[in-house]
C-alpha cells in the first residue's frame, strides 16, 4: 500500500497531465452511460425524479416483446451487413484502381473527389441527397426521365428507401475506408508481386494470393470501424426519412430516440443498452477473428 502511494507520488506530474482527460471522459462519457443504464432499470414515469422506482428487467422484457423493436433490430442488422459490404467493396475496388499503374494522371483529383464527402458536414450532405431524390425537385428522377429510364422510388417507396439511404451513406463514408486501404497498399512489399509474376502467376492469382493477404490489417480495421458506424446509423435517418416509409428505415438508434421523445425513458435506455452490448460484442468478435493470424504487412 505505501509502496503504491509512493509510486503514485513519484508519478504525480503524470496524474496532473491525465487529470483533464480523465475528467472529461468520466463527466461526459462514463457517467452518462452509467446513468443511462441506471434509467433502463426504472419506471419511465419516475425515471427523471430524485427517487425513481426500480422495476428490474421489466423494461428489457417489454422491449424484447415489442414487435416494432424486433423488426427494427433485424432491419438494423440487415442494413449494417449490406452497408459494410457495399462500402468496403467500393473502397477496396477504388483503392486498387487508384494504386494501380493505370491511373497515373489525375490520381489526386479522383482521390479528392471520393474523399471530399467525408469532411462535408453530414447534415448538409444528407439534406442535398434528400432533395436529389425528391420527385418534383430532384435531379435524379429528372435525369432518369431524360434518359428514358423508369423512375427511382427513392425515399418515398418502401422498396427503395433503404437502398437510397445506403447510397447517401456510401457517398459520405466510403472515402474514409478508401484512404485506409490506400495507406495499407502503399506499405506492401512489391517484390512479392514481381516474384509471383516471374513464377507465372496470373493477374488474378497475384491479387488473390499475394496482395489481398497483405491487406489484412486494413480489412480488419475497416470492418470494425464500419460495423460500429452502421450499427449506430442515425443522422441520415433524421435528415432524410424520419424512419419511414412504413418503418423501412426505422433503425434501432432512431426508434430509441423516438421513445425518448415520447418520455418512455426506461424502454429507450434499455434499447440503448441492448444496442451498446451488440456493438461491443460484434466489434470484439470481428477484431478477434481478424487478429487470429499475425498480420504480415
Amino acid at each position, binding site marked *: 500500500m505505501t509502496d503504491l502511494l509512493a509510486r*503514485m507520488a513519484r508519478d504525480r*506530474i503524470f496524474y496532473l*497531465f*491525465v487529470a*483533464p*482527460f*480523465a475528467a*472529461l471522459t*468520466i*463527466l*461526459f*462519457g*462514463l*457517467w*452518462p*452511460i452509467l*446513468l*443511462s443504464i441506471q*434509467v433502463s432499470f426504472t419506471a419511465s414515469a419516475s425515471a*427523471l425524479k430524485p427517487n425513481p422506482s426500480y422495476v428490474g428487467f421489466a423494461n428489457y422484457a417489454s422491449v424484447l416483446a415489442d414487435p416494432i423493436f424486433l423488426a427494427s433490430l433485424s432491419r438494423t442488422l440487415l442494413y449494417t451487413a449490406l452497408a459494410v459490404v457495399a462500402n468496403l467493396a467500393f473502397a477496396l475496388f477504388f483503392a486498387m484502381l487508384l494504386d*494501380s499503374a*493505370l*491511373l497515373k494522371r489525375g490520381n489526386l*483529383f*479522383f482521390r*479528392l*473527389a*471520393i*474523399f*471530399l*464527402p467525408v*469532411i*462535408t*458536414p453530414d447534415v*448538409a*450532405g444528407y*439534406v442535398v441527397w434528400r*432533395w436529389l431524390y425528391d420527385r*418534383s*425537385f430532384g*435531379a435524379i428522377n*429528372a435525369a432518369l426521365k431524360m434518359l428514358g429510364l423508369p423512375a427511382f422510388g427513392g425515399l418515398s417507396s418502401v422498396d427503395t428507401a433503404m437502398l437510397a439511404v445506403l447510397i447517401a451513406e456510401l457517398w459520405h463514408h466510403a472515402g*474514409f475506408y478508401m484512404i485506409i486501404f490506400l*495507406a495499407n497498399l502503399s506499405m506492401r512489399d*512489391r517484390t512479392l508481386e514481381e516474384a509471383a509474376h516471374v513464377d507465372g502467376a496470373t493477374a488474378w492469382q497475384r491479387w488473390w494470393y499475394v496482395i489481398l493477404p497483405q491487406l489484412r490489417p486494413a480489412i480488419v*480495421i475497416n470492418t*470494425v*470501424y464500419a460495423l*460500429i458506424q452502421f450499427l*449506430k446509423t*442515425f443522422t441520415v435517418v433524421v435528415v432524410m426519412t424520419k424512419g419511414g416509409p412504413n418503418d423501412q428505415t426505422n433503425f434501432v*438508434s432512431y426508434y430509441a430516440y423516438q421513445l*425518448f421523445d415520447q418520455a418512455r*425513458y426506461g424502454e*429507450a*435506455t434499455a*434499447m*440503448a443498452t441492448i444496442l*451498446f452490448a451488440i456493438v*461491443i460484442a460484434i466489434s470484439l468478435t470481428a477484431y478477434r477473428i481478424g487478429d487470429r493470424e499475425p498480420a504480415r504487412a
Partner: protein
Amino acid sequence: MSPLRPNRLLQAMGYLVATVTSVLFLYPYWWMLVSAFRPTRAIMSDPLRPWPEALSFQIFSEIGRIGGVNLSTYALNSVLITSAATVLGVGVTALGAYALVRRPRAPGFSLVRYGFLVTIMYPYMLLVIPVYLVMFRLGLLGSYAGIILFLALGPLQFFLFEQFFRKIPSEVIEAALIDGASEWQILTRVVMPMAMPITATVALITFLLNWAQWFPILVISRSPDTYTLPVALLSMNSELGSNFQGIMALAVLTTLPVAALFLLAQKRVMEGMASGAVKG
C-alpha cells in the same frame, strides 16, 4: 513498378470508371451550389439546369434571419464553438495520451484508457437524455461551455497522439533524464517541439470533425441562440413548406468553409486520418 505493363484498353476502362464515379460524387456539390442561386419555382420546372438563370446573391439576405436568430449568429457560433472545442480537445488529449503512453502501468491509468475506449462504442445519439441530465446537474445546460466541453474529446484525435508518443524512442527521454531534466522540462523542451507537426494535423482534423457536429449541440442548447450552422440547417430542413432555395444556400454556407480548408490541406488531412485509424 508493377510487373504488368498497363494495357491500353484496361487503362481506358480505368479512366472511364474513375471519371464517371468522381463526377457522380461531385455532382451533389454542383447541384447544391446551382440551386442556391435559382428560385424554387425554377428548380421545380427544370431540376437539371447546369447553371443558374441569373447570378443573384439576394437569397443570402433572405435567409438573414432563421428561426428568429440572425444567420451571422449561427456562423459566429460555428466558428467559436468549433475553434474552442478544437483548442481544448487538442490540449487535453495530447497531455492525456502523453501521460498514458509514458506511464502505462501507473495505478488507474489503464482504467482511464479503457473507460475512454468504451465511451467511443456507446451509441452517441442515445446519450441524449443522460447527457442532458449531466449538463443539468452541472448547471451547463444551454451554455457554450457545456457544448464545448462535450465536443472536446474524440477517438481519432486520441489515437493519433497515442501512436505518435509511442514512436518517440525511449533513449531520447532517458538522455534528457540523465542530463537532469525534470518531467516538465522534458515535456516542454523535448517532446513538444517534436510534436508540433502531429499537433497541427490533429488540430486540423478535429476542426473539420467538430464543424460537422449537430446532435449534442441540439440537445445541450436551450434555444436557437447557441445553434451552429448544421443545426440551423437541420431545423430549417424539418420545417413544413420549407424554402428550398434557402436550404440550399444554407447548405452551401455550412459546407464551403470546411471544403476550402480541406482542399488547402488535403495531404495532411488524408494522411492523418489514415494513420489515426490504422492504430485504432
